[in-house]
């Protein structure tokens, strides 16, 4: 039989009205990323001053809602908002009405009733930020949704690479480890591809999702593939996501033996990154983590200025356009 035709435009469901959110790296064009990184750079200079607080977002309200534990992301969003003089409110799932079984929709409606300017949300389920965006008028920033996206992490990683290597285009980044369970990996592959970097994913076959090459990366199952990279990006072995008996790898010991990033496997001059928190001795050897080539603290510092830039961009210059996902297309 013949080819199946593309479903006609008229039959697609209505697109959501465009509004400025940062839910996925897919919401951004290259020029948006360039503007965000430049804004972050200017904030990094302002933070060198003695008085670090800027009046830019005075009178604005940023609500942080965290349904998953987080240290660096929640603290850096909160500090970013405060550095820009916004009012902040932080809600954690534990001890809130979420414990009483309140649905995400109702929590969104409740928070929306305070008219916040931005809601920053981390949630264990894919699609939670879209849901919040649907039920509130606030700008929504995704601080991690399940295994889907963590766009501000990818932006801070781009910032760190640009700062260290002076460029992103043409840089070769090897991302090593548990790609399957990693929203950081997905956002970074998308962001690095958008900016013209070369990405190689390295890890055991069960932890590399089938079909991921379509995102614009290469895949290798041999740790030797990191040798050519300018940057070795080490992912956390997400033990809390490893279902009992799932057998993604036979043991952490075997993982470390074959895919751990050790001094012997890192070439002099290669930069090493890790989104944290690290399992020292599992995916990364402590000698690598503490070496001068490691950019791990630089990443944390970048997190603050990049999140300042994201909040600033959403509330002032914009737009960070929301591309409604391309739904219901039959290829």
């Amino acid at each position: 039989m013949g080819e199946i035709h593309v479903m006609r435009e008229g039959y697609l469901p209505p697109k959501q009205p465009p509004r400025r959110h940062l839910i996925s790296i897919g919401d951004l064009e290259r020029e948006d990323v360039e503007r965000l990184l430049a804004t972050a750079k200017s904030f990094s200079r302002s933070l060198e001053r003695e008085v670090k607080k800027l009046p830019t977002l005075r009178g604005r309200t940023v609500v942080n809602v965290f349904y998953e534990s987080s240290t660096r992301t929640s603290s850096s969003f909160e500090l970013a908002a405060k550095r820009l003089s916004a009012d902040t409110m932080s809600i954690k799932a534990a001890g809130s009405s979420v414990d009483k079984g309140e649905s995400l929709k109702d929590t969104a409606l409740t928070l929306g009733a305070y008219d916040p300017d931005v809601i920053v949300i981390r949630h264990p389920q894919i699609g939670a930020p879209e849901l919040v965006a649907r039920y509130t008028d606030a700008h929504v920033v995704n601080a991690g949704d399940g295994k889907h996206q963590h766009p501000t992490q990818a932006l801070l990683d781009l910032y760190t690479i640009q700062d260290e290597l002076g460029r992103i285009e043409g840089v070769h980044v090897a991302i090593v480890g548990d790609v399957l369970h990693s929203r950081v990996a997905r956002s970074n592959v998308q962001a690095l591809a958008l900016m013209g970097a070369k990405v190689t994913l390295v890890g055991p076959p069960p932890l590399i999702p089938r079909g991921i090459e379509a995102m614009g990366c290469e895949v290798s199952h041999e740790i030797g593939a990191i040798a050519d990279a300018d940057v070795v990006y080490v992912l956390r072995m997400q033990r809390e996501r490893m279902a009992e008996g799932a057998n993604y790898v036979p043991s952490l010991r075997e993982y470390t033996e074959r895919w751990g990033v050790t001094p012997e496997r890192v070439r002099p001059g290669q930069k090493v990154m890790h989104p944290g928190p690290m399992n020292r001795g599992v995916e990364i050897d402590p000698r690598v983590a503490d070496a001068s080539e490691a950019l791990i603290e630089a990443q944390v510092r970048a997190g603050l200025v990049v999140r300042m830039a994201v909040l600033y961009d959403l509330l002032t210059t914009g737009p960070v356009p929301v591309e409604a996902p391309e739904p219901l297309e039959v290829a």
Partner: protein
Amino acid sequence: MLYGKNGRKDDLVVCGARVLDPVEGVDAVLDVRVDKGVIACIGEGLDANGHRVVEGAGLVLAPAFVDPHVHLRVPGGEDEETIASGTEAAAAGGYCAILAMPNTDPVVDSAAVLGSLIEDAKTQAQVPVGFLAAITRGQDGAELTEMAELADQGAAGFTDDGRPVVAPALMRRALQYHGITGRRLALHCEEPTLSKGGQMHESAVSAELGFTGYPSVAESLMVERDLSLAAYEEAPLHLLHLSARESVDALRAAQAKGVQATAEVTPHHLCLTDDAVRSLDSNVKMNPPLRSADDRAALVEGLRDGTIGSVATDHAPHARHEKEVPFEAAPFGVTGLETAFGALYTHLVDPGLIPLETLLERMSAGPARAYGLEPPRVAAGAQANLVLLDTEAAWRVEEKGFRSRSANSWLLGQTLRGQVRLTVAAGKVVHG
């Protein structure tokens, strides 16, 4: 095996419609007169005899549809659907008969539960309903139900739909026991260790979105196993809601070897691919999941060539609050009774992927035969089971238009071509 409200049998004349019955081999502009619920005569220039006259010019009159796969949600899920609301939805969708699945609370696994459903259907069902009973008690996959007693009580067939019969030996016993009941075994094919945690088809899309994949091999492996067992036991079976090319290929090969296997496919698997999940809309989350463009092409081809003989909606109503959650937390399933014809006319017939005659056969005689029911016919002397279709009318699918108690449709907001104008079920006008 079908139960509904008795009573009124209508008189009616449909004038000047294109009468299209692929089984009877009729395709001509004719009048059809129904006397007391029975098709009395078919011809030109018929006398109305004082009956209600329905103008059929420009419309298609066909045998009404049979849906072999509906979740009426009773007992236990009356907030989502009831026999009354589900059969009203069926009437609006052009159906003259539907089969209800037993994965309710409690499960339809005893003559007592089945008997009470049959009694309710006799007072509430707008269109006749057949009830399938479970293959295993509580659908736990451990012990067979008392199938012979259930068949005597009126079960239309047996299925653990929603779950596979995991143990091969138990599946084999069920096939052996089938000889006693004579009612069809309908199988939900899913290898649960391969589909565990799966949210969508395993593909480049799931890799990008981060969802745990539910690979097509989880279905086709079980299809191949069940076909092997059916061949060995020389017993017939019906495969529910196929989604993968490999499943269609295995079925076609088994049929060629003489295995008595029938199968069904849903409108959403025929119209959509896994790309739709990029919307993160919980109304495109179903089990089995939407698969690749290649799988979709295989399903369309299987339906066209008859390997897959039935369209089944797998109408699965869910309460609004259950679907208004992140995709990962949402239950599987979408509604379909009221949109099936419009969706398939728009996405398959209109673009030329399958002929209208084929679609009409797969929505009516195909599913009826799969379960040993009398196929609806446009023929003198037959009980009137008719649907009058407007293939030109465009209509917008909106929540407020649904007769179903639930509105978890993947078609909300879309404009469809092809509308049901009139449904006659068991001799009674139930819609239009």
